[in-house]
């Protein structure tokens, strides 16, 4: 098999790569910025500890910062304060019980995390998911993307002093969670995606409610823009701060909005379509400066595009009344509830799946999706038994935090907060 020849660095998908000369990745340790040698001897370098309990580190992140006055000269991030042992715990649960766990990893983009695991198991089982389930998954994932970006926007703005943004963002977040509650019964951590489809049919009255939200949300986005986009303090604090160049971002494995803000035109939803993303119309926003402001703009535009995708999903779904929501493979999928009272076979299948679980063929897969934070990967190894042998998640937040040291170039300590916020790391995702 042949592989296409190497493209030059400026070739697609890199739209712009000239944010700064050369590379700013610290050497030799790419994630630790050390105080320059001529500084280290001076005794006015102050070492400050941020976290793990700090109101503006987005969770239990600990940063050890060397300050020269107000300037950040060195930084080291320490993570692991929220290590939950997902990967070990999932090895002792049956496949269908495991679905509950990935949501708690990235607890802001929970629906996408659930999706990646379910897709990985479906790939091993080679299941064909019904169309209605696919579109509904897409709808919920896009709502979840909006939810995630709203949390980013609310908390980042709060940290930079724009307190009212928090209330506006949480107003729309509540609307999204109401929709979630209507469909799944849970606000967060829904466990709505089953292996093979959806857990329940879409309730009556969901489409009109969702449509109301879709029609309302662009107005809300305009509200946000009015509040922030001409706000001199916000612009001052974000423009030109925490610049990351395209080639550094790629070398550091960045993905998602952080990568697109650095001028790389790359979105897995478009390049490597999963679900039915190749059947919807949406734009991939790309900005070229790579600073905090551009990361904010990418997320704002993404929310608008996500809203459009939700709209298109709704149009499809409204015509799919009564279609199946889950595959009809009784060896994998729980039988419908009402059958348990009438059919012996269904009862046996239910009992077998619930007690011992189903078996998944031997093999290993690595599935990636575009979660709100970037490339969310799931590596699953199956031994052929009822439990996974190894599950590993490629966490976009984990990778995003690696770029902290690179983004800090002649930065004030106050901008450190803006930068860490703009990378949008969720600590549960980072530590797993």
């Amino acid at each position, binding site marked *: 098999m042949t592989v296409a020849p190497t493209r030059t660095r400026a070739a697609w998908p890199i739209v712009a790569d000239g944010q700064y000369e050369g590379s700013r990745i610290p050497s030799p340790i790419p994630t630790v910025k050390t105080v320059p040698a001529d500084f280290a001897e001076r005794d006015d370098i102050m070492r400050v500890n941020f976290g793990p*309990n700090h109101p503006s580190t987005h969770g*239990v992140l600990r940063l050890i910062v060397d300050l020269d006055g107000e300037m950040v000269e060195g930084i080291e991030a320490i993570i692991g304060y929220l290590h939950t042992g997902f990967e070990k715990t999932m090895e002792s649960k049956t496949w269908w019980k495991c679905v509950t766990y990935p949501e708690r990893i990235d*607890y802001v983009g929970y629906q996408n995390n659930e999706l990646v695991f379910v897709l990985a198991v479906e790939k091993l089982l080679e299941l064909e998911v019904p169309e209605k389930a696919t579109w509904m998954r897409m709808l919920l994932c896009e709502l979840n993307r909006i939810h995630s970006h709203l949390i980013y926007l609310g908390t980042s703005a709060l940290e930079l002093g724009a307190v009212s943004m928090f209330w506006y963002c*949480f107003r729309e977040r509540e609307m999204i969670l109401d929709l979630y509650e209507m469909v799944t019964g849970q606000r967060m951590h829904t466990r709505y995606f089953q292996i093979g489809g959806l857990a329940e049919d879409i309730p009556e009255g969901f489409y009109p409610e969702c449509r109301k939200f879709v029609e309302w949300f662009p107005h809300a986005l305009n509200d946000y823009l009015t509040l922030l986009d001409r706000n001199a303090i916000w612009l001052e604090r974000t423009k030109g701060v925490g610049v990351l160049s395209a080639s550094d971002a790629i070398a550091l494995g960045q993905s998602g909005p952080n990568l697109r803000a650095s001028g790389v035109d790359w979105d897995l939803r478009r390049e490597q379509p999963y679900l039915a993303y190749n059947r919807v119309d949406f734009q991939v926003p790309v900005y070229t400066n790579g600073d905090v402001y551009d990361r904010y703009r990418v997320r704002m535009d993404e929310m608008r595009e996500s809203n459009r995708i939700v709209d298109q999903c709704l149009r499809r779904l409204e015509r799919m009344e009564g279609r199946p929501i889950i595959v009809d493979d009784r060896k994998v999928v729980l039988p419908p509830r009402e059958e348990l009272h009438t059919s012996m076979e269904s009862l046996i299948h239910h009992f077998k799946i619930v007690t011992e679980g189903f078996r998944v063929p031997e093999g290993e897969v690595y599935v990636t999706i575009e979660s709100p934070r970037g490339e969310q990967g799931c590596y699953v190894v199956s031994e052929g038994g009822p439990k996974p042998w190894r599950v590993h998640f490629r966490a976009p937040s984990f990778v995003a935090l690696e770029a902290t040291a690179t983004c800090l170039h002649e930065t004030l300590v106050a901008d450190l907060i803006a930068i860490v916020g703009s990378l949008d790391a969720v600590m*549960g995702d980072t530590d797993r």
Partner: protein
Amino acid sequence: MVKRLRDEGLSSERLLWPTKGPSRFEEELGVEEIERALGITTLEKAVRWAQTKSMWPDTFGLACCAIEMMAIVSSRYDIARFGMEAFRSSPRQADLLIVSGRVAHKMAAPIRQIYDQMLEPKWVIAMGACASSGGMFNNYTILQGVDRILPVDIYVPFCPPRPEALMEGILRLHEAHNAGVPPAYERRTVATS
């Protein structure tokens, strides 16, 4: 040994059975009536009432529950109605520690330090299944319940609890404090067993 409320000489019935009305002892004394008629109260009760109206939580988010904890400040739930909208970033200014999420062993020492830095009287709410009991994470890294290291006043179940559930926990805490239940650290250091 776990001390019971009545060992403290407290009217536990009042908590468990709020509609029961005054006890026989109170009836004979007529305390309620005197208070109502004269508009007087004991200093202790007045202080307790004041404390419940400004019980400031620490800004301490751990995991999933932290998002729902943030939501109680938002406009729909508006914890300001109960005088608690002022989330304090410094533990020294906070009265209430809401442990919102799973606690890893690595995090245990920082949490205990934050708790020790808080000034008395102080309260702890274990929010969610993980903080209460370890929840679904029965493994090497997660502390099986934050009551191993902190005296917990109120446990809020669910995973994650709705904002309403957390508010219910907070209101129960207010109720208990108004009724004279001392904070958990006066009753025990940490959970037994």
